[in-house]
């Protein structure tokens, strides 16, 4: 705490630095998670198991990077909300394009395959 009050005397500087341990932990976790997601391919998991494992490790890694390496965990909620709510628009776009993709492959199958 005495270190904190010493830094906060300097008014222009943000007063927080975080202990090195938290960065090393997150770093280690990212390594382990990347190793696991590589193992998904190594053991050739297929189907729903493969996709759910890939997404699980991906979101976990992305969350750790954003929360701790990019400091969002320590930011005020205003910034966090401004950054994360637009992601719902991307999710909607994904949903729309899944439907569009199904329609395209459906018409292609009809005209390319059945049409011959």
């Amino acid at each position, binding site marked *: 705490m005495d270190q904190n009050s010493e830094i906060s005397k300097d008014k222009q500087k943000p007063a*927080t630095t975080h202990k090195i341990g938290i960065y090393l932990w997150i*770093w280690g976790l990212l390594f382990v998670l990347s190793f696991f997601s590589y193992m998904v391919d190594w053991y050739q998991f297929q189907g729903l198991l493969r996709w759910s494992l890939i997404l699980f490790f991906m979101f976990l890694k*992305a969350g750790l*990077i954003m929360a701790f390496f*990019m400091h969002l965990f320590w930011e005020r909620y205003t910034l966090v909300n401004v950054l994360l709510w637009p992601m719902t628009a991307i999710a909607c776009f*994904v949903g729309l394009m899944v439907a569009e993709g199904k329609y395209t492959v459906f018409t292609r199958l009809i005209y390319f395959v059945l049409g011959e």
Partner: protein
Amino acid sequence: MSDSSLENLPKGWKGVPSDLGSDQTAFKGVQWGKAMMWIFLLSDTFIFSCFLISYMKGRASTVVDWPNTSEVFSLDFMGVPVPLLLIAIMTFVLITSSGTMALAVKYGYEKNKKMCGWFIFATAIGGLTFVGMQAYEWSKLIHEGVRPWSNPFGAGQFGSYFFMITGFHGTHVSIGVIFLFIFARKVFRGDFDTGKRGFFTTMKSDYVSIEILGLYWHFVDLVWVFIFAFFYLW
């Protein structure tokens, strides 16, 4: 980052309406350059999302089989093809450089010039290694006959999505590496301790720039997490 003037403001969800309705700066305790970097990264997120979504749509709607990525990106190690070996190494290199960047930001705020500079330098070397391996991967695939319009492994769209998505990401990494070297020099020269004015600005240098640079670099790593999952593993 909290600073002493923020202690009196409402915290958590109650802080959102009070920050946004305060008729002043909405992002309390966030230096303007950092807020601008976040806004830029948000717009960049949309660009990368559009690329990845168009890839998803292209892959979902082709009637030809998609190339098997674990075979296309396999690398011979002592005569045995190891699936995705190069991509796995690239992933670990990028995560390592992300970790060194996080430590550089930490030492920057502690005004530890030497450690901060060396960690930024290490990050730049990591980024350079990544770009080098990506160049190798590109030339390998081009030699094997992968083109934006066709390839010997399967659906023709594969090449265009591969070159566009990894190329755009590689451009980001390259720009990041250039800035990392520039900032490593600035740190070692002591610009951030003396508050020397920058080249394009009349404002004094500050260690918050290291965090802004860090945000960009972590974002590059973040995008790679998604590319690795969707393009290489899926």
